């Protein structure tokens, strides 16, 4: 018994022999990740409509939305991203996919920024800025077809149009509103 106990520590030899070498020669050998791994995200520029749903859900503000002149800019800063994939979950058009990419180190922060620029639509009534991109409008029309008549108008022109159509119903002539 006591000899057995004494010899116990030597079991390490058999454990070590059986397990062999377990480390891999990364990056020369196989990849270290599983199928479920969440890496950096990729935003499909052909689908994104600049609605900002992902920006609202992103916990560390890696995604930001800014407006400059006639454009809405969606910026993705990988340096802040925690690779949670919440953005992909909430995007209404499925523009975001979570990739397996994780080797993201860079010597320049410029490499860690990706932006997507959307043009802002103009009001078909007065020509002012509408605050929405054309894809956003298409999305609204797709989901509520009745909106097609007024989505291309700014709120002011919309009000005008509503009053106009109400007045027309009540018998006013169009000339009253012109000139």
């Amino acid at each position: 018994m006591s000899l057995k106990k004494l010899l116990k520590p030597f079991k390490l030899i058999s454990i070590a022999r059986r397990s062999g070498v377990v480390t891999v020669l990364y990056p020369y050998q196989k990849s270290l990740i599983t199928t479920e791994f969440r890496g950096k995200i990729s935003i499909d520029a052909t689908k994104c409509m600049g609605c900002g749903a992902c920006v609202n859900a992103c916990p560390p503000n890696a995604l930001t939305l800014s407006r400059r002149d006639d454009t809405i800019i969606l910026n993705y800063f990988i340096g802040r991203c925690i690779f949670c994939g919440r953005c992909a979950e909430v995007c209404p058009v499925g523009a975001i996919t979570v990739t397996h990419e994780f080797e993201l180190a860079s010597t320049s922060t410029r490499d860690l920024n990706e932006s997507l620029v959307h043009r802002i639509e103009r009001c078909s009534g007065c020509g002012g800025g509408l605050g929405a991109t054309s894809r956003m409008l298409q999305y609204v029309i797709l989901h509520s077809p009745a909106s097609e008549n007024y989505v291309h108008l700014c709120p002011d022109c919309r009000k005008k149009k509503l009053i106009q159509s109400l007045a027309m119903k009540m018998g006013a002539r169009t000339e009253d509103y012109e000139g």
Partner: protein
Amino acid sequence: MSVEEILDIIREKLGGIAEDIRYVESAGIIVRVKPVNLREASHIVHDVLDAYFRTMMAVDERPINNTFAAYYVYGLDDKGINIIIETHADPYTPVLPSIADIVPAADWYELEAWDLLGIRFKDRKLYRFVLPDDWPEGLYPLRKDVDYTARPSPRITYKPPLQGPRLPVGPYHPALHEPEYFELFVEGERVVDVEYNGFHVHRGIEKLAESPRFTYQKVPFLAERICGICGFVHSVAYTLSVENAAKIEVPERAQYIRSIVLEVERLHSHLLWLGVACHLLGYDAGFMHSWRIREKVMVLAELLTGSRKTYGINLVGGVRKDINMDKITAIRNTLAWLRSEFAKLADLVTSVPQIVRRARGTGVLPRDEARKLSVVGPVARASGLDRDVRRDYPYCAYKDVSFRVPVYTEGDNLARLMVRVEEIFESMDIIDQLLDKLPGGSIMAEKIEVPEGLIGIGNVEAPRGEDIHVVITGRGRPYRWRVRAPTYQNIPALKVMLRDTPLADAPLTIASIDPCFSCTDRIVVIDLKTGKKEKLQTVSIPGGCGCEI
């Protein structure tokens, strides 16, 4: 014993001094007392009713009821119910009586409330504790009138430079876990006293969660970043507290998945600790093999959640990632492999003389000291306190599984090691049972609405012990979110463990509570024989993660 019966007892014992006694399902029995009666109430709850001190939450409630409030949470472990003593202090000069002499575990909480909210505690020494030394006087960051973006200019403090021969060893690495700083006062080779100086990387997470930048659904990701090793524990504790407060019905399947992932996390954490303990004792082979086994657990965690650590699958109302048949098979295979491999390793580690002889009888924490400090987790269980949140205050799916809670009475480093070794086996059993019973259905609650002004408590048995979060709900985000990590409760016990022991045992003893700040221990040794505190030597203590400083 039913809630009614406990209420009767409390009415009988505290009825004379309580302004109001009410039962809130999401938190416990709330007893409101005037500050003058706080000490008496604390004495009755802590000593007469024999409740453990769990946490204290101080809140700036001036926008609600023009007071500063403090909620002292005690737990009747054997009945699984909390008793909360609520008291309100004046909004202009908030002062409360100190209870640190009655409830020693409350010491830190009072210092923290003083630092962050400016609540003064009478008849005790108050000093800068959580905030950095150069934070200005009189600015209390957790008050609601301090904006979370406030960046005050630092005050200039003068600290006399250290004198005498010094041997600075290694980097001070704030990026890896929490750095801490012990001062060991020694006489020759014996430690005679210990001073602790922590919170070097206090991040203001509680304040951040109250800021407009955050929402209920963003906080789980923040909570998960409180700890790099057992982060999921914090995100579950947070979501539980909000769900309890708002009575959100979380689907069974989500509860099971949470429990499974929590146990996977415990496996990796205990294996990590075991490896580090071996390393500290110079048994690097044990370290290597423990981490070899742990690697499989990490890969499993990634398969289940999408990430090796900071899993990010938790939201208020449920989880984001389901488990399918393939994953169940993967879990079963990993567990089968782990069982046989770990059995061999455990057998080896617990028989190697260089571990057993160094761990037996060192760093002893006697039962009564452990009780006084209300310590938690393996530290409590190794000192004869039979407490485990999974059994005492069941949450997630733990009510549906049976498991053993290992308890040792020796209170030494070996006992703490044995508790963890046995818990690894128990965790594997728990996962198996959960998989057997895994119910179907959805993984996300249908309705998630959080009304304002409710209080909720969420507790989770982390690998290091009980982790408890208290939330007061607000509009769109918590009004107040109080986090109490297990190490917070356990560090004060180190004073007892280290006192009057050989200096050589200090590294293992400090590591034996499995502190969360592992990577960087800085220890200053002060030789009392020379009678001069200035005569300093700094020694290197290898930290928890195997990085030497």
